[in-house]
């Protein structure tokens, strides 16, 4: 439709939005941009194009193949749905930040070289941090700073890797890397930070719950999944990723069980679900890579629905903690939000007929085909924990819950604005469509799919797992819901407490030591400094010491140098030079003779 890289459609669009007068027109343009981008995507042939000469290198802004197209499709689809959800926001800056973020992610997806990859990678971090800051609370300000610091650090590591890679190979091509080189290790590290792989993940559950209600919906989709894309592109089949991914999957689930903040709980499930994808990328088989792509696709939709649902609850109640919501029977006031949320919850829990079932099972099966018993069991266990937290604990706590008499009223609770409901509804609809007709998704995957999710044994085994998780939940429901408001320690402790301690150590003990050293040497250094300006004073000091006259040293030194004080008749100079010449002659004759 328009011969422009999709990244620039969004970026130019983002910059145009604030220039447009009239709110309706602005909204129309904001919704039109994803449509134009989608039309462009559908007409983009596979291949490599949009090459730009930059210095001595050739940048590639359009490396289009099945893998990049798959991610681009879902990014554009979700940007449209999220924008519908966010369209009532009057602050245009939020839309600008969101579309710069989407555009730069598409830039990453189609980047065929390391320079443009890095360029878009950094815009992604810079644009997304505004989606946190627009929440305008002190906590979101600080969380945003931490988010920015972590991503700038990750970006710097990535740049270090890229520079090493370019200087050692001479090529800026963004292709599979050989992990034995230091450059590849740096690049992998930069990617892993964005993929939120523990212990580098703490920025995610720290920042996402603090973002704006609509901004966080955008954030759930792009940063981690673009990291999955670059990992699939360049580190497929890396053994390390298999284990990191499986650990991630279980790690997120365990934290989610003890979490009470509704969006932070969902954030830990992003860590967990991205774990499946990272693990699949590590497995590296065609089936596993298909699974990673399919799961990224499905995850982006249902996670957006889940964040939209919880965002709606926060919007209408002003509360974000299960302990402030349980027992108020919110389901009576917001049934539509509940139903749409549950579609997302069934999807993430891989209930048959919902989209998680057609993608997650593919990854677990790929672990089976790869003969990885421990990995298969870990992923299986993470599935149990997913249904437990997102499918049962969260909706039970938010919409139902046992009243214990201490509950206060929540005033004016009703469904969120219509556009938010439409956004959720579209997301939920996609969850069901891809769940019931998996072929629509499978057609887009990078390799041919030989996997059938809906076999009787698959379905029965899934239902067994889910139903008995429900039984376990019912038995331990009180234990799960109990507790008081608290925060959970995570690896952000290292920069929030340890880093703070280092700062305090520098500020007080280390500074005091500096003062001591300075005091001890300050007067000596002052003397040396004055002496260097006024070296004759040294002779005077010695002279006065010899004749025994009392003169203070500082007084002598403080006297400014005055040329006239030391002026002598020219004869003395001539005499001195004659004496030296005579001495020289003597020495010369001794040596020569």
């Amino acid at each position: 439709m328009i011969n422009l890289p999709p990244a620039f459609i969004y970026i130019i669009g983002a910059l145009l939005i604030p220039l447009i007068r009239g709110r309706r027109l602005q909204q129309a343009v904001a919704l039109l941009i994803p449509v134009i981008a989608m039309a462009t995507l559908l007409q983009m042939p596979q291949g490599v194009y949009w090459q730009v000469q930059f210095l001595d290198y050739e940048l590639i802004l359009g490396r289009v193949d099945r893998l990049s197209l798959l991610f681009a499709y879902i990014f554009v689809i979700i940007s449209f749905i999220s924008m519908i959800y966010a369209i009532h926001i009057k602050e245009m800056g939020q839309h600008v930040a969101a579309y710069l973020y989407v555009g730069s992610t598409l830039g990453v997806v189609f980047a065929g070289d390391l320079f443009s990859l890095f360029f878009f990678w950094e815009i992604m971090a810079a644009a997304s941090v505004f989606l946190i800051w627009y929440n305008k609370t002190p906590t979101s300000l600080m969380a945003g700073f931490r988010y920015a610091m972590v991503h700038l650090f990750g970006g710097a590591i990535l740049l270090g890797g890229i520079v090493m890679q370019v200087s050692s190979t001479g090529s800026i091509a963004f292709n599979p890397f050989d992990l034995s080189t230091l450059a590849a290790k740096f690049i992998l590290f930069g990617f892993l930070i964005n993929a939120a792989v523990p212990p580098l993940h703490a920025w995610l559950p720290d920042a996402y719950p603090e973002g704006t209600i609509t901004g966080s919906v955008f954030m759930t989709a792009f940063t981690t999944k673009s990291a999955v894309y670059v990992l699939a592109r360049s580190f497929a089949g890396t053994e390390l990723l298999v284990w990191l991914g499986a650990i991630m999957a279980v790690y997120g689930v365990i934290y989610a069980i003890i979490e009470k903040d509704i969006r932070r709980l969902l954030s830990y499930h992003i860590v967990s679900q991205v774990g499946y994808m990272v693990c699949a990328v590590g497995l590296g088989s065609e089936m596993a890579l298909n699974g990673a792509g399919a799961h990224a696709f499905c995850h982006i939709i249902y996670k957006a629905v889940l964040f939209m649902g919880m965002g709606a609850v926060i919007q209408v109640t002003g509360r974000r903690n299960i302990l402030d919501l349980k027992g108020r029977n919110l389901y009576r006031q917001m049934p539509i939000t509940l139903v749409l949320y549950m579609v997302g919850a069934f999807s993430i829990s891989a209930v048959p007929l919902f989209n998680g079932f057609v993608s997650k099972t593919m990854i677990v099966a790929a672990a089976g085909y790869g003969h990885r018993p421990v990995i298969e069991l870990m992923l299986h266990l993470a599935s149990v924990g997913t249904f437990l937290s997102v499918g049962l604990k969260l909706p039970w706590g938010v919409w139902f819950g046992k009243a214990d008499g201490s509950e206060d009223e929540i005033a004016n609770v009703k469904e969120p604005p219509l556009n938010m409901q439409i956004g959720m509804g579209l997301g939920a609809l996609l969850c069901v469509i891809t769940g019931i007709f998996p072929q629509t998704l499978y057609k887009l995957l990078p390799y041919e799919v030989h996997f059938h999710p809906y076999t009787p044994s698959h379905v029965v085994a899934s239902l067994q797992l889910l139903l008995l998780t429900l039984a376990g939940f019912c038995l331990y429901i009180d234990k799960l819901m109990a507790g008081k408001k608290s925060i959970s320690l995570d690896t952000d402790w290292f920069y929030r407490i340890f880093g703070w301690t280092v700062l305090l150590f520098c500020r007080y003990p280390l500074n005091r030591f500096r003062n001591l050293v300075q005091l001890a040497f300050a007067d000596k250094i002052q003397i040396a400094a004055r002496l260097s300006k006024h070296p004759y004073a040294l002779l005077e000091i010695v002279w006065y010491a010899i004749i025994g006259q009392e003169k203070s040293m500082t007084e002598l030194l403080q006297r400014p140098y005055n040329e006239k004080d030391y002026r002598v008749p020219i004869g003395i100079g001539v005499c001195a030079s004659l004496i030296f010449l005579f001495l020289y002659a003597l020495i010369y004759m001794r040596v020569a003779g």
Partner: protein
Amino acid sequence: MKTTIRRRIMLAAILALFLLGFLFPNPHPHFWWQKIPVFDIFFGFFGSILLIVFAKWLGHNWLLKDKDYYNND
């Protein structure tokens, strides 16, 4: 009364899935536990309890801190 009905429905469903598990065994088992038709019944039940107990224990003894823990200035 209501809870007993719910409990009965649940038990019936578990029983039904137990039997279905024998009717539809996994045709391509990769590991020994996939040959057990009702493995997921046990895995779901004990897995969920294990996760809850372990996470709660970990939270109680180590991870959960007072909500002002990070307010350090």
